[in-house]
């Protein structure tokens, strides 16, 4: 079995025990790697009802069989855990080269259990693995942390770490590697709860593949596609979507009171390139280089991005029309280790609550939560990350904020299963309506993808017939991508659903002889395993819903005026989707399907 490093590292932070096991071919054939292994270990090792911020939660960080090769974005890593924001399954992925180095060190995956008594970091130098004291690193932001570890070790190490947001258990704290985030669902808070400041890794071993000659030939075939089809990403990066999505009428604005932002051109790809761009950056083994290093004009701040999702969440959602502010806010989120999407939507929730006069009894620490207030955005992020004043409330995320605020504020709490959605409208894109509602993570745009629907006229968008299948197909692709592990942004060049390109990558790397059907079944198995984790926690059909606003208030104006997703429509799509997955009418994976997928034991732990 080529491709794999061949070892899985287990670190118990409670006991200090470090051990390794061989990566089994049986598990590899069923779950591939990355989030596939993650889903399996999380289900098996984390008991039902475990506190996400307690020692019983499991944290899986890793790579996949394609990591460390020259395939697209093959330095990308993943993290899987039980989310403190949603209470359910969470996976995240992040760019850079950390996962490639983990492979070069000889490991496919790290499975972290327990909870350290005092701050530690995990130090991996090829075979040598140590749990080291991190008391001196605690309190440092993510850049200071990485620089300090570089001083202590050497520049050859790559580090995955948290800042104050993770230490303070902000429910949407992220984890940062280099200038890139493993963003969603509070994995950073799980690090913080385990008192795990960082993982740092260096490796000098080989990643061997089965058929290098075939891979080289395939690589040559794909180079023109990367150059042509990804040219937009190379030129402007994801920020170009601000103008595109705004013109199509589905850019979340003022907490989704609108889906068009009058000042989109002041925060989009055009102005960032023209006035703020310094240079392009790429993750390991990437020919696209979508990363833009941008600088603020009024401040020394330099940041990676802001990416489209951050421009939407911190920008149009909060009514902020100033690129400088967004660059500073993005940088601040990265330094503190906060997810920009959930941070932005938590602030936009506050702004709408303020607009509706619901915050009169709350101590707002002197902040004015009027939409568009630049200073408030920056201060609110800082206070959330540092667990100060009104920031303690904002750090809860929109679901819990609405629970505590009451007064019908759930009607504008924009989240799915607790996770604030990305900037791909759950009203204007039916694939995302169904995709978000069934997503194992909640409001993630990297389960189902909006790619098949952008550019279509409203008439075609309104039709729901093909949308559950679109969501199923695209989620299988992204699930494969996070198991393999490769970047999803090659999808324009290699396929927005699973294609022979991906089959060739796996077979040529590992030496298997899989068919497209078999690869699809692996993705389906992983997705259903993730679902089973949630079902064991009590998730059923009743939880597969959208924010109240998406199901009750149509888009008020613009090209997609009138679109929303009422309950009857969602119900129709849920029935179709469950059938594709082999989940029963209540959304629980059926015993029959679990047995077909070779994971029948899971059914014993589910309530039917």
């Amino acid at each position, binding site marked *: 079995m080529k491709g794999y490093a061949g070892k899985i590292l287990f670190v118990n932070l409670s006991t200090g025990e470090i051990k390794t096991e061989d990566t089994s071919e049986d598990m590899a054939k069923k779950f591939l790697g990355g989030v596939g292994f993650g889903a399996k270990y999380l289900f098996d090792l984390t008991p039902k009802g475990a506190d996400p911020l307690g020692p019983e939660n499991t944290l899986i960080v890793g790579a996949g069989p394609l990591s*460390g*090769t*020259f395939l697209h974005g093959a330095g990308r890593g993943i993290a899987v855990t039980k989310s403190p924001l949603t209470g359910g399954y969470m996976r995240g992925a992040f760019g850079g*080269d950390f996962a490639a180095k983990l492979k*070069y060190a000889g490991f496919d995956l790290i499975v972290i259990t327990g909870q350290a008594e005092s701050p530690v970091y995990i130090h991996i130098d090829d075979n040598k693995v140590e749990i080291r004291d991190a008391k001196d690193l605690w309190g440092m932001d993510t*850049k200071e942390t*990485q620089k300090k570890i570089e001083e202590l070790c050497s*520049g050859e190490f790559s580090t995955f770490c948290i800042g104050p947001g993770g230490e303070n258990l902000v429910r949407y704290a992220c984890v940062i590697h*280099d*200038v890139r985030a493993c963003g969603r669902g509070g994995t950073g808070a799980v690090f913080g709860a385990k008192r795990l400041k960082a993982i740092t890794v260096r*490796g*000098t*071993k*080989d*990643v*061997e*593949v089965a058929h*290098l000659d075939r891979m*080289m030939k395939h690589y040559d075939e794909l*180079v023109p596609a*990367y*150059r042509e089809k990804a040219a937009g990403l190379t030129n402007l990066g994801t920020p170009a979507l601000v103008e595109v999505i705004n013109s199509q009428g589905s850019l979340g604005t003022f907490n989704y009171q609108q889906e068009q932002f009058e000042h989109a051109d002041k925060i989009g790809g055009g102005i960032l390139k023209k006035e703020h761009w*310094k*240079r*392009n*950056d*790429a*993750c*390991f*083994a*990437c*020919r*696209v*280089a979508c*990363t833009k*290093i941008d600088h603020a004009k009024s401040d020394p701040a*330099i940041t*990676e991005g802001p990416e489209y999702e951050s421009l939407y969440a911190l920008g149009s959602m909060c009514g902020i029309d100033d690129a400088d502010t967004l660059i500073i806010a993005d940088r601040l989120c990265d330094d503190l280790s906060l997810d920009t999407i959930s941070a932005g939507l938590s602030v936009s929730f506050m702004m709408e609550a303020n607009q509706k006069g619901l915050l009169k009894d709350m101590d707002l620490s002197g902040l004015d939560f009027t939409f568009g207030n630049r200073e408030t955005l920056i201060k609110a992020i800082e206070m959330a990350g540092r667990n100060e004043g009104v920031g303690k409330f904002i750090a809860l995320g929109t679901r819990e904020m609405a629970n505590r605020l009451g007064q019908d504020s759930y009607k504008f709490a924009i989240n799915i299963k607790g996770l604030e959605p990305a900037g791909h409208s759950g009203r204007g894109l039916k694939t995302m309506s169904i995709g978000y509602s069934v997503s194992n993570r909640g409001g993630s745009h990297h389960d189902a993808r909006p790619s098949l629907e952008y550019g279509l006229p409203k008439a075609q968008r309104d039709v729901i017939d093909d949308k559950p299948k679109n969501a199923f197909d695209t989620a299988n692709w992204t699930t494969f991508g996070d198991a393999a592990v490769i970047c999803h942004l090659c999808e324009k060049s290699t396929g927005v659903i699973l294609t022979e390109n991906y089959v060739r990558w796996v077979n040529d790397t590992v030496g298997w002889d899989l068919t497209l059907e078999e690869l699809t079944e692996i993705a389906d198995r992983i997705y259903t395993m993730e679902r089973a984790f949630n079902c064991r926690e009590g998730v059923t059909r009743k939880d597969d819903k959208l924010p109240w606003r998406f199901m009750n208030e149509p888009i008020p104006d613009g090209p997609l005026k009138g679109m929303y997703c009422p309950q009857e429509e969602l119900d129709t799509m849920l029935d179709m989707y469950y059938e594709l997955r082999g989940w029963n009418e209540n959304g629980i994976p059926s015993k029959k399907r679990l047995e077909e997928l070779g994971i029948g034991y899971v059914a014993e732990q589910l309530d039917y």
Partner: protein
Amino acid sequence: MKKIGFDPDKCTGCKTCELMCSSSHEGIFNPAKSRIRLWRDEFYDKFKYNVCCHCAEPECVDVCPVEALYVEDDQVKFNRDECIGCFVCVDSCPYGAIYTHPDLEYILKCDLCGGSPTCVKYCPFEALFLEED
């Protein structure tokens, strides 16, 4: 003399060069076995590179005890079969452009892939190029 040139304004740090170098020479993926190296000193900075520049007065050739390094056709060439892994050349190179193979059997030094470097061919943004003095 031919050597591999570098434009830091075009380099994105993707390290395709290191991957292509290790796979074409060693048949595996491993930047620690690459003859060309990329790095940056600070967040957001431009990348730097290092690779043998086939200099005019190569000290490595002078110090090699077994003539595994030699000058031919205006290039500093390397015969792996002769190398005894003493790594005297690694210390002698004023540019630090000779690397130690992680298995400690021989050195890693750019051979220009015989004249058409793979790293140059696959650099996505033409940050690497072949130049002649």
